[in-house]
């Protein structure tokens, strides 16, 4: 059916209302759902938007850069006839982009080799490769107990004021140093509503490391329009996918802070007068977050990979808040930071018990890391959980109320935090981290070591005890 096409649709006027980030336009026949638009102000300055709902002659348009300064009469809309897309091409690394994907470092435009939809269609599950390549992050608590693999999405659940940014940049630096694949490595950093300081500190740290040419930065700062935050992770991931699947790189994507993204989503949803689900967040937030997180992965027959390290600050440190809760249901585990540890000066302040890496079993063990690695991780978790329970108990009945073997386990918990968890800015190889862990376990009575087989006790524990007594 022939519809009025481009010439009629150029420079459409007839805007009926503006509310929040939404613009309501009349007589928009022929406009498609999720079509991208340019909104031109009186000086012909363009802002990006997209059509989010339509009826016969009206359209609702979400404007990513906000509506400040626009009037009903002098604003014009150009319908672009396609979903929101972005140019991708060589030499995107080493560049700085705005939150909508436009270069803001004064450098040249990106020479487009391809134009990609920023919201990416779902990867066919039948074409996915199961992520199974162990990544050494240099962090003991991650490498030994919550191993990261290429193509995984492993968020950092943090709280306001905790050192999540330092952890992310530490991982970005440490990971880069591993093995012989440095030149294929890339980091895409998306700042979503964070302060200038945060973004700048990350850039500077990477610069100090001489790693800037491996990084693409996408910046939507706290002062930038809120609606643009819906765009930032999507353009960053579009860039990451290009780097991974066209340039065969292993890309680590850091998205910080996803909480700001979700707030923007709620803000826009409220403007739409949608029926909210928990805490005012829209009912489709799970699907919407999934569309972002699920873009991590490996594809069969492609050399590159997209690994995601999203960061989110849990409002009120509450892990059951909808943002961490829905994220946790989508991502392949989580690294949780703890305030108590942070206060005690432990870095990284990883609160081990709620942490998890779902893809760890695929990436560790015989032929991948070490045959005893899985049992070691399980054993550490079992005893550490026991130590935490005892810590709680001893705060009520006192340490004297505990049996002698319980007191040993209690002491193990503290030593583990001081010697294993805390590492400051030291980078540890997996072997080094594992050795520290075995040493700690060697101090425990054998009846506690139920997760280790007799052979493992013989091989790893007794030999270390013998060394110690010598």
């Amino acid at each position: 059916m022939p519809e009025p096409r481009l010439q009629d649709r150029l420079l459409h006027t007839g805007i009926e209302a503006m509310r929040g980030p939404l613009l309501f336009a009349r007589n928009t026949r022929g406009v498609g759902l999720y079509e991208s638009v340019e909104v031109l102000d009186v000086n012909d300055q363009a802002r990006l938007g997209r059509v989010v709902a339509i009826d016969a002659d009206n359209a609702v348009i979400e404007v990513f850069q906000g509506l400040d300064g626009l009037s009903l009469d002098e604003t014009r809309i150009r319908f672009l006839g396609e979903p929101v897309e972005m140019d991708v091409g060589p030499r995107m690394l080493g560049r700085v982009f705005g939150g909508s994907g436009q270069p803001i470092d004064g450098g040249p435009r990106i020479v487009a080799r391809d134009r990609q939809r920023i919201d990416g269609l779902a990867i066919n599950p039948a074409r996915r490769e199961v992520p199974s390549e162990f990544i050494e992050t240099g962090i003991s608590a991650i490498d030994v107990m919550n191993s990261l693999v290429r193509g995984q999405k492993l968020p950092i659940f943090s709280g306001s004021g905790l050192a999540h940014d330092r952890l992310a940049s530490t991982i970005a630096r440490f990971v880069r140093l591993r093995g012989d694949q440095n030149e294929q490595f890339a980091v895409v950093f998306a700042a979503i509503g964070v302060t200038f300081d945060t973004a700048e500190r990350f850039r500077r740290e990477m610069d100090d490391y001489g790693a800037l040419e491996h990084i693409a930065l996408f910046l939507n700062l706290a002062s930038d329009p809120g609606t643009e935050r819906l765009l930032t992770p999507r353009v960053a991931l579009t860039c990451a996918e290009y780097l991974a699947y066209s340039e065969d790189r292993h890309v680590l994507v850091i998205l910080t802070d996803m909480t700001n993204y979700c707030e923007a989503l709620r803000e826009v949803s409220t403007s739409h007068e949608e029926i909210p689900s928990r805490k005012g967040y829209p009912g489709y937030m799970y699907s919407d977050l999934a569309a972002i997180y699920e873009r991590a992965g490996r594809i069969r027959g492609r050399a590159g990979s997209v690994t995601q390290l999203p960061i989110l600050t849990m409002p009120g440190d509450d892990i059951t808040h909808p943002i961490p809760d829905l994220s946790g249901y989508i991502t392949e585990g989580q690294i949780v930071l703890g305030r108590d540890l942070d206060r005690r000066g432990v870095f990284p302040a990883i609160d081990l018990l709620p942490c998890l890496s779902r893809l760890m079993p695929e990436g560790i063990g015989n032929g991948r890391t070490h045959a005893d690695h899985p049992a070691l991780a399980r054993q550490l978790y079992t005893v550490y959980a026991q130590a935490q329970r005892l810590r709680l108990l001893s705060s009520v009945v006192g340490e004297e109320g505990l049996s002698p073997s319980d007191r040993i386990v209690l002491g193990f918990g503290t030593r583990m935090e001081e010697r294993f968890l805390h590492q400051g800015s030291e980078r540890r190889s997996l072997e080094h981290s594992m050795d520290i862990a075995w040493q700690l376990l060697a101090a425990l009575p054998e009846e506690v070591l139920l997760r280790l087989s007799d052979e493992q006790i013989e091989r790893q524990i007794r030999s270390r005890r013998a060394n110690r007594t010598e």
Partner: protein
Amino acid sequence: MAEATVTWINGPVLRARRQGSFHIKEAVHVGAARLVGEVIALRDDSVTVQVFEDTTGLRPGDLVQGLGTGLVVELGPGLLGQLFDGIQRPLRALGELYGDLVPVGLSVPPLDRERAWAFRPVLEAGLAVPVGAVIGEVQETVGIVNRVLVPAAAAGTLEWIAEEGEYRIEEPVARTRSPDGIVQEIALLRRAPIRAPAPVGERFAPAIPLVTGQRILDTLFPVGKGGAATLPGGFGTGKTILQQTLAKWCDADIILYIGCGERGNEMASILTEFPGLTDPRNGRPLMERTVVIANTSNMPVAAREASIYTGISIAEYFRDQGYHVAVLADSISRWAEALREISGRLEELPAEEGYPAYLPSRLAEFFERAGRVTTLAGAEASVTVVGAVSPPGGDFSEPVSAHARRFARCFWALDRERAQARFYPAVHPLQSYSGYVDQLERWWQDRDDLHWRERRDRLLRLLEKQAKLERMAKIVGRDALPAEQRLVLACAEIGTEAILRQNAYSEQDAFCAPRKQVAMLRVLCHFFDQAEAAVARGIDPDALLTLPVVRKLQRMGEDIAGDDPESFRALQAEIDIAIAGLELPAEVESA
């Protein structure tokens, strides 16, 4: 066919002005790309449609074409080992044709039209055949015979049946004439509506367990073949791992694994892992008994809603051939959220937490499709449904968890604290229950041990006492408890380690056969008896915990191969000797 013109679009939902008559749940094609959709409401001249594919680019004025029938699944040989999306598009074939991303508006038939199957007739022409009668067979995989049945409309006299030979699924293999003289052709391929349950002979209560090989489920909270179970748990408590474990080891003939709104990598891992795992019963790859429906979290939300119906309709197809089928749905919550999202877009009045008021009735309909039946041909068969639930914030009082447990008689509650200590399966023994224990008791008593029920109940009671005593120990300290109570704590801890924990990554322990479960429970109860007697003699219960034999008892799942009676007898003897040796001042040498 009826047509309509799109007037309003909101995400996956649209309204259109109709010319012609549509019916509720009629399948439609939308727009030039012929996206698949379904009519969900009718009013005056307007039809409301939910679209199962990405609606980007749809416009007012686009055409909606009614297809005259509801959404259907294609059934026939070739389903096993396949991976479909929520509306049964074959994802492998789509990948080969259209690349790495799920395409929009494109499809290929779910079943391969060109592949020829070896058909063998089992009836002769001239016989009267009722609905559901088996007329022929196709050996679909080594373990599974696909039985060709007489469809509902084709009962009558078998006029002609094909000779043994190779046939493609659309070729007729038989012809019947009804008493009214209507001639019907029967092919290997057939279609069934996904929203309606397939007819059965009679329904019965479950009487044999679905053996999962997981001790905490089989021994403490068994589900019967034909029963329904829910598996609620917050994120990270191991729902998916447990579902996958069931898919691997449960003793159903056919597995329908429905990944509804879950992770893409999980689907990939099933596809990667299952072909390499062997079915212990016939030595063939597990994938040969498995059908996977994958509508991952980032695939269109309306297709997520359809996916569980697609899955259970395929399950019924195999049930009607006389098989025991297990449907593992992960997760029901994502399906409910899809309902909620569509309902929200329609601006329906919400009931609890934004869910539509019809959520409980939809859940009931779904769980009610589980059952132990006789097929129309008289064979015993069943569909067992295990639905994972993902409660927000791990709160089991939320609507989906609360309603699901009303309709499923098994409740396997996953516990965050256990999962955090990496104690798997993290099923909480006091929050979980099974309504099938009485019906299944007989089966277990027959597994050569008449004390099964008594021992199972003893273990559960012990765990209940432990919970009470631990509360007390938190106040007064464990050492202040009398010896009998410390004995209860010690025995409960040992029993928890020995029976409830199971190592899914250990070759010995991943699957625990019923005989081994019985043997383990027996030796554990023997230990309890001996320990009780020892404490009555004045032995300190804490001394028991450091006995080397207790370590063996706690690791018997991993360390003892199979149900070797000799090993269990030896362990029992060792327990007797160790406990008898505790007479002296209870200072036991630790290794």
